[in-house]
């Protein structure tokens, strides 16, 4: 069985807030749900499938179904960190194809800024029952220094430079200047990035994504429902998901799980990297984008630095426009989970509803990719390919 053509993304919503001191977490989930259902032209009562991940409060899907008054016949709370929502789209398509639901709602929300979380520079303790904790937590693993070790190895092995990594942030900033909701709207240069304070070598402050509150939602529906709605149609045509971990100590930081999720998605969709007109690539850090682009086959392994340089990711300038909303690096990384907004901007591009200054011409096939967890220890990769239905 394939999910190709079995489901459409009918509704999208990105919460405009970037700091939500005056809102509860459950409230944010419900607000984005309303937003995406409005966008689709559907109502809460049409929802018969619900998807959420570890950011949902309390008992997760149960607590949110309770708060929102959902009466659903299918639920999925797959948790792979920030990539969860990319996987949820694929799982929603599978559930729809199997007749388990017809209108699937996916929500994400978080408020790390309001809560004052030191997201990147403190070690997260997953508890004594997590088998890796005794062998990692004492050494101070943080989000930043984990990704930094992947960057350091890439630099060592392939001659990648900090200036090349900086081009990824530069491209994101060129896009963010047109997004009135973006947290950071100033265009930056390569010099700005490499001269920003070093957080954890070789990653500078401007190699890191923003920390924002907010969230987003998606509505995935069966083809008959999509055809009944008055919105441009975006069809799910392929997906892949894969965990990558330490492989029993045979650690190789130069690639991500995208080497598995990418080919699975391309194969199911029946397209090649050269067919993709726009990509949303998870950008927790600049290095995340560079390694992912290589792994998805947009360039050869080790050539990512050259590929992203000189504005190649800037819409209207380069060959592969990426993250035209400004991405996690400049726009939004709600709840420290950027997968959902990756799908949102890809759908905007396919609908022709991106900002006119960044809209890709004839954008008929787009890809969204998530990398959740930590690139250097264990992460979940998720690739989703969509076209105009």
């Amino acid at each position, binding site marked *: 069985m394939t999910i190709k053509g079995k489901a459409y993304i009918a509704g999208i919503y990105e919460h405009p807030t970037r700091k939500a001191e005056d809102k509860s977490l459950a409230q944010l989930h419900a607000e984005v749900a309303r937003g995406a259902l409005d966008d689709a032209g559907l109502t809460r009562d049409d929802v018969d499938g619900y998807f959420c991940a570890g950011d949902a409060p309390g008992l997760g899907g149960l607590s949110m179904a309770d708060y929102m008054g959902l009466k659903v016949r299918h639920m999925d709370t797959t948790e792979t960190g920030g990539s969860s929502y990319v996987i949820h789209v694929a799982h929603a398509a599978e559930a729809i194809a199997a007749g388990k639901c017809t209108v699937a709602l996916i929500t994400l929300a978080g408020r790390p800024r309001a809560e004052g979380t030191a997201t990147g520079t403190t070690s997260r303790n997953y508890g004594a029952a997590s088998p890796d904790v005794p062998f990692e937590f*004492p*050494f101070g693993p943080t989000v930043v220094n984990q990704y930094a070790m992947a960057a350091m190895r890439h630099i060592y092995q392939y001659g990648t430079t900090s200036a090349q990594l900086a081009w990824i942030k530069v491209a994101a900033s060129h896009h963010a200047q047109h997004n009135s909701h973006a947290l950071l709207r100033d265009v930056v240069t390569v010099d700005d990035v490499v001269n920003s304070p070093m957080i954890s070598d070789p990653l500078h402050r401007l190699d890191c994504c923003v920390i924002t509150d907010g969230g987003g939602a998606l509505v995935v529906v069966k083809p008959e429902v999509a055809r009944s709605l008055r919105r441009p149609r975006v069809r799910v045509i392929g997906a892949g998901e894969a965990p990558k971990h330490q492989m*029993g100590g045979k650690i190789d930081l130069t690639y991500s799980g995208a080497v598995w999720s990418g080919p699975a998605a391309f194969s199911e969709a029946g397209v090649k990297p050269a067919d993709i007109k726009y990509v949303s690539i998870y950008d927790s850090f600049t290095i995340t984008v560079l390694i992912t682009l290589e792994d998805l086959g947009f360039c050869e392994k080790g050539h990512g630095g050259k590929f992203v340089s000189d504005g190649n990711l800037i819409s209207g300038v380069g060959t592969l426009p990426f993250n035209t909303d400004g991405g996690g690096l400049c726009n939004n990384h709600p709840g420290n989970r950027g997968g959902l907004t990756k799908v949102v901007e890809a759908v905007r591009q396919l609908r022709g509803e991106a900002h006119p200054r960044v809209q890709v011409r004839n954008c008929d096939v787009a890809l969204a990719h998530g990398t959740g967890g930590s690139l250097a220890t264990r992460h979940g990769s998720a690739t989703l390919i969509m076209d105009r239905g």
Partner: protein
Amino acid sequence: MAPAEPALEKENKPVSGFERKVPAPPVTPETQPFWSAAAEGRLLIKWCRSCDQAHYYPRSICPFCFGDTTEWREASGRGTIYSYSIMRRVPVPYAIAYVTLEEGVTMMTNIVDCDLDAIRIGQQVQVVFRPTEGGPPVPMFAPA
């Protein structure tokens, strides 16, 4: 007073004048021997007798062949830095690293007893054990 200070610094406070407090590793029945050996200054790794190779972090069930005949073996403690990063935006900067042991497995650790800015990938290192806050010591590495 004055002459004693350099000696103290040399012995306890190699770089920044004070050291990062190291959280205690939670000890489980499955990995108790690892931590008992660490307290004696010995680095143990798990070896699978079915597929004849080491893995890390240690498990009862081999992650390669899924066999249950794993045993503890003492590692040489010698290794090479696979990658590292200096965490700077914290009160006490420190070096996190992956070190590949002679036995072939790569483990997360800290690089200590050296100038953090002189750390390089490919550098030869040797295990040293460092105290934790209320738990067994943990294996870190210093330039060989």
